[in-house]
């Protein structure tokens, strides 16, 4: 069974049909997705800017991380849950949409970037907590993160456009 077959099956399930036929579910869930973006990305952007030594310069990096990460996680949960519900509206159309595919290539890259940073140079954060400028790899991780998330946001917005859809 191919992924496309799976998406076609998904489209027939009761939740998917319910979301698709509801007038209100998409506007409400999408509003949650966009407001969740303010929380999730707002915190993530500030953290990345701190890693690059551009914002919140007087606060130690570890403190920014420890204090903001819980909120970032909460925002991420909101984004994933609302995102899944959005996807369930028209699984086949979204699955074949080029912008969604770009988004779902960049998302794991952003996750990997964060994981590499956390399991690597962040382990020794005590050494560079208040260092100015921040170490090169921290600045890299922050910059890469900002670029990836910008791409993810833009790709996400473009999903609505059916310029390249085949159906």
């Amino acid at each position, binding site marked *: 069974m191919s992924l496309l077959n799976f998406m076609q099956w998904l489209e027939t399930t009761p939740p998917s049909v319910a979301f698709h036929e509801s007038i209100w579910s998409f*506007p409400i869930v*999408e*509003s949650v997705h*966009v*407001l969740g*973006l*303010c*929380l999730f*990305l*707002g*915190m*993530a*952007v*500030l953290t990345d*800017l701190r890693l690059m030594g551009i*914002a*919140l*310069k*007087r*606060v130690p990096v570890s*403190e*920014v991380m420890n*204090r*903001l990460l819980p*909120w970032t996680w909460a925002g991420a949960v909101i984004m994933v849950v609302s995102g899944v519900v959005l996807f369930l509206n028209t699984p086949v159309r979204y699955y074949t949409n080029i912008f969604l595919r770009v988004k779902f290539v960049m998302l794991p890259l952003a996750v990997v970037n964060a994981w590499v940073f956390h399991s690597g140079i962040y382990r020794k954060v005590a050494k560079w907590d208040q260092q100015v400028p921040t170490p090169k790899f921290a600045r890299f991780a922050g910059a890469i993160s900002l670029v990836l*998330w*910008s791409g993810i*946001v*833009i790709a996400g*917005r*473009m999903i609505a*456009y059916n*310029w390249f859809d085949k159906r």
Partner: protein
Amino acid sequence: MVLAFFKWCEASWMGKTISGSVYLFPVVEAVHLLALAVIGGAVLIVDLRLAGLGLRQTPASQVARDAEPWLVGSLLIMLVSGFMLMTSEAMRCYYNGAFWLKMWSLLFAMIFTFTIRRRVALKDAVQPITAKIVAFISVLLWSGVGLGGRGIGFY
């Protein structure tokens, strides 16, 4: 008079150029969305701190002062890009209830942010309950802007 202004916007060079192009609206809107992420962070980090959450070990005044350039910068980008988006569909906005909800929320949000909230945030010796109420009102007003903005598309 307001109607005349909106008619003028739609007929303006900017309105015609953006609405006449397939790509310009998405590009300007992408800028609007990215600046939204920044202003979201800048507003929330201060409101969280006022509510006693987030960067608790840093004085609220310091968080507010550090966040202010980002708040002002992203807000300016939002206002400019938002105006551009409006001109491309000015008459639709004029007759759209969600658009006016957004504009009124935006007006009150900006006034509140740069008067009461600013004063409370920069003064560290404030009653916690006052700070929490200020944070709540701020989140409420800015959420109104965000939800109204999204609602424009659905009305």
